[in-house]
């Protein structure tokens, strides 16, 4: 095994070289090659119905249900051990479910072996065939389907161009950098225009900058081809930047499904709130639920107001507010505005994170609150211990059920 360090060090140089030299080649090739065989492939509708997998006593995937629309980019997001990869492997056919089914365009594929399912797959470690060159790696699914020689050539050229590897067709697969191997894996997965592409943490081994570049590229290709993608990742930023919808998984269950904005802004429970980024969760007692807004009483006796979800009932609860939605004002004056929550506290610490200043503010009788401030011109850090008032609009906060 090659450790990540040496790979990383070669990376930037190779990638820069690719970027600089690849673009003109791509344009030239685009002019020379006859029109791409099929520009749009279209995707399938996928339905997971009560998928369940047990290993011994442990239920790794617990009655998962989800409907994925044709052409949708759908992510399974969760920590390691949440069952997301097992779910993907059941869709791929490598893991046999103990319960439930997978429907593709309404057809149950339980009895179909992996090689007959016709999905494209990108594996975490790329799984590039080391004895084949780039062209043959990408041609592999076509040769396995016994395509005619000229058809294979046309389609592989198309795929090479799509992932900007035309120049590397004859290259030994083992000589490629991590990013290039990733592109080969991607091209190989889509070259036969599968109705569904399964990706298992495909960017996990890449460094941060390259990751972002590949996210954009994969998303662009997916939209251009209109393919359905089922994407597994543990990186919430990656899931949010690429997905049409995200299913947040934990302990073998889907905790919430929705578009990135929705799951970020309106998490269904504290786990989702924390997993998708920094979250303040202020514990208290849920008082009256009047209309859209509910009241939460803190142990100190102060009351906060926030939107509430249907699942939240009177009793213990948590007020959820993102750090970037909180305003920090020096002084002690409370607000009289009913549409704004206000809490007094003292600055505990201010961390400089480059684009933001992250404050930790001590409150009376509650856990400290995190506040993110844009590092804009004229914003200086407040001194430790300074009295401040935290303010945020009621409509930006949400009352969640307390954790079980």
């Amino acid at each position, binding site marked *: 095994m090659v450790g990540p360090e040496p790979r990383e060090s070669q990376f930037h140089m190779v990638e820069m070289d690719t970027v600089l030299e690849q673009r003109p080649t791509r344009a030239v090739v685009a002019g020379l090659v006859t029109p791409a065989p099929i520009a749009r492939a279209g995707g399938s509708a996928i339905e997971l119905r009560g998928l369940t997998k047990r290993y011994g006593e442990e239920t790794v995937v617990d009655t998962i249900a989800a409907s994925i629309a044709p052409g949708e980019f759908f992510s399974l997001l969760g920590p390691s051990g949440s069952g997301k990869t097992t779910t993907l492997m059941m869709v791929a056919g490598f893991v046999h479910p103990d319960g439930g089914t997978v429907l593709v365009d309404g057809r149950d594929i339980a009895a179909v072996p992996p090689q*007959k399912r016709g999905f494209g797959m990108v594996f975490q470690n790329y799984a590039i065939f080391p004895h084949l060159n780039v062209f043959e790696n990408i041609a592999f699914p076509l040769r396995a389907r016994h395509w005619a020689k000229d058809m294979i050539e046309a389609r592989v050229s198309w795929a090479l161009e799509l992932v900007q590897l035309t120049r590397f067709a004859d290259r030994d697969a083992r000589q490629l950098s991590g990013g290039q191997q990733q592109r080969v894996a991607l091209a190989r997965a889509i070259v036969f225009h599968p109705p569904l592409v399964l990706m298992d943490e495909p960017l996990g081994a890449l460094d941060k900058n390259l990751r972002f570049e590949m996210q954009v590229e994969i998303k662009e290709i997916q939209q251009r081809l209109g393919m359905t993608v089922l994407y597994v990742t543990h990186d919430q930023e990656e899931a949010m930047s690429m997905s049409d919808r995200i299913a947040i998984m934990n302990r073998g269950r889907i905790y919430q499904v929705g578009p990135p904005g929705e799951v970020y802004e309106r998490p269904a429970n504290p786990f989702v709130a924390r997993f998708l980024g920094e979250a303040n969760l202020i514990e208290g007692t849920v008082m009256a639920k009047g209309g859209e807004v509910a009241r939460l009483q803190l142990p100190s006796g102060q009351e906060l107001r926030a939107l509430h979800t249907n699942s939240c009932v009177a009793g213990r609860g948590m007020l959820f507010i993102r750090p970037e939605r909180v305003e920090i004002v020096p002084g002690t004056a409370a607000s009289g505005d009913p549409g704004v929550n206000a809490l007094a506290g003292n600055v505990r610490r201010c961390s400089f994170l480059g684009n933001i200043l992250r404050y930790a503010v001590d409150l009376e009788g509650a856990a400290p609150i995190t506040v993110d401030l844009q590092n804009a011109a004229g914003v200086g850090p407040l001194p430790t211990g300074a009295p401040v008032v935290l303010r945020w609009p009621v409509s930006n906060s949400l009352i969640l059920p307390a954790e079980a």
Partner: protein
Amino acid sequence: MAITVATPGAVFEATSSAPRDRTFLLMLPSLAMLIFLFLVPLALFFVRTFTEFDGSTAEFVEQARDLLLSQAYLTALGTTNWISLIVTVTVLLISYPIAYYLTTAAGIGVHVVVLSIVLPYFTSIIVRTFSWMVLLGEHGLVNDLLLAAGLINAPLSLTYNRLGVLIGMSYVLLPYMVLTLYAAMRSIDPSLLRASAGLGASGFYTFRRVYFPLSLPGVLSGALIVYILSIGFFITPALMGGQHDIMIAMLIDRALEVAVDWPSAALMSATLLLVTLALYAVYYRITDIRRLIGAR
């Protein structure tokens, strides 16, 4: 691959004074043994051939040519290579599924197979050869069973002929092939097979296009090892073969024991050694030996 995390001090040391590697000292005892117990006697053996020969160089060359072009030698050379080839192919065909089973299976079955391959390895080759003679003889176990089952009417001649040599040698050489193939197959990334299936390849196509090509280095290494060992085989063909199964090693033995003709024996040994070294050179080129014994 080792990535050493060096402390600043260690880095300084490494750059300021050239690191002196003394680990080679550990090899001295075995190196001495190799030189004094193998290389020196071998050299002396060949040197004596020349010094004890009374005659001119031209005469020596002529006699050498006569020997190496003699009917007996050429026949033995042909027989040796032919038997080695058949043994290699046979062993490969038997070993490939066994090695594959070992890489994929788990549990008690693996231990049973490994034991039954490795245990005989620790037994003397003569004992094993005699065991086969007992099994394959005219009134041996195999013939008795076949007769009792009514599958044959008269005992088959399974030994003291070419078939006996092939059975005996294949059995003795099987572990070398199985273990070599096993090492090669173990290094095949199973996710490649999954990728192949996931991309639409049938089981047979996956084997043909992915698994077999990736196991090929092991196949070549194993075949070369078995072939190299085969061409020097003596005991098994001597005990289990018939009169038409004379291999070169037996010819050398005869020259020494019966004819007491050291120059001929040395000459034939030298040619055998040359062929072996040539094959080993090929083997060395295609195989990373350190990887075969499990180093990474």
